[in-house]
């Protein structure tokens, strides 16, 4: 799991049975003490593999939306919740909620995009790299650093400063920081429910950077199923995604788009390996 704190933005991404939405009220409270007012909120997730294990308020998307609605101040009056389906991979639907105030609704524009990648059915040999050797005597930081190198994660963005951690007996998380841009990877390598995520932000003026980065990130895991959510204010960044994944033997099976307040366009694509 990861937390990013910018001067006027906070991003929290958590897995397992965490109760992420319970952070909203205390964060708004702490920000108010710094004379900062909430202007927009965005919540996204895929389909849980084990939905029945999720605690309140994550027991269903409906329950999450009710909780979000009740946690946000009234001035965030432009709100939308939607489940973006994948026709071929119903297990990979994308859930989006966004809300913003009037200023953000009228004047929102951004040159940045956010890409969220969810990968399942990882290559078994590659997933093994995210298991620790029993009794290795290493700290989580040291073991994490080793996994970053042997997996090739350090080559995704060689310019990034990487902060990594290996969990015991398995699992891995990293944050990459490169100027004002973050990237993050989380890995659950156990066979039967193996999962890895990759997320990064970029500028619409970056050219082919996204293609290179996505290729490198997905090659680390060689998953059988991939979903990619691309969020941009006004650009066809999503069109570059297939160009990155199809040379890796992944075929685009579905593509859904929708508009959200304070986010712009969210495009959700799913891919499966041609060998399957």
């Amino acid at each position, binding site marked *: 799991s990861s937390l990013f704190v910018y001067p006027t933005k906070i991003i929290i991404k958590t897995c397992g049975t*965490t109760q992420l939405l319970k952070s909203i009220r205390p964060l708004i409270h702490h920000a108010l003490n710094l004379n900062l007012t909430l202007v927009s909120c965005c919540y996204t997730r895929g389909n849980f593999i084990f939905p029945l294990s999720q605690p309140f308020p994550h027991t269903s998307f409906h329950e999450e939306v009710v909780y979000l609605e009740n946690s946000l101040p009234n001035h965030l009056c432009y709100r939308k919740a939607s489940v973006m389906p994948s026709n071929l991979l119903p297990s990979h639907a994308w859930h989006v909620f966004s809300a913003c105030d009037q200023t953000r609704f009228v004047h929102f524009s951004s040159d940045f995009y956010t890409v969220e990648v969810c990968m399942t059915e990882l290559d078994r040999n590659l997933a093994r790299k995210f298991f620790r050797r029993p009794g290795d005597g290493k700290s989580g930081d040291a073991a994490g650093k080793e996994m970053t190198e042997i997996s090739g994660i350090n080559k995704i963005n060689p310019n990034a400063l990487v902060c990594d951690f290996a969990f015991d007996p398995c699992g891995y998380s990293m944050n990459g920081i490169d100027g004002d841009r973050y990237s993050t990877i989380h890995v659950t390598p156990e066979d039967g429910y193996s999962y890895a995520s990759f997320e990064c932000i970029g500028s619409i003026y970056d050219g082919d950077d996204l293609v290179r980065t996505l290729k490198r990130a997905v090659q680390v895991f060689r998953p059988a199923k991939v979903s990619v959510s691309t969020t941009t204010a006004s650009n066809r960044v999503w069109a570059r995604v297939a160009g990155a994944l199809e040379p890796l033997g992944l075929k685009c099976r579905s593509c859904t788009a929708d508009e959200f307040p304070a986010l712009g366009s969210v495009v959700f694509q799913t891919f499966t390996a041609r060998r399957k």
Partner: protein
Amino acid sequence: MALSGFEGFEKRLELNFSGDDPIFSNMGLRQLPFDSLQQVLHEVQCTVVSAVGNHYFDAYVLSE
């Protein structure tokens, strides 16, 4: 699929703020005391296991 296991799929929350106070314009939320962040993360049921930062932002790896 296994009957139960660790849930890999994440939940992601992004909050954006604005403020008029020039004193806070450079650092803003980065001025939050670490105790306050820990308190928030306690609600989520996470803790910080590793951290790094630069001129622009702070990044924390969390438990779970």
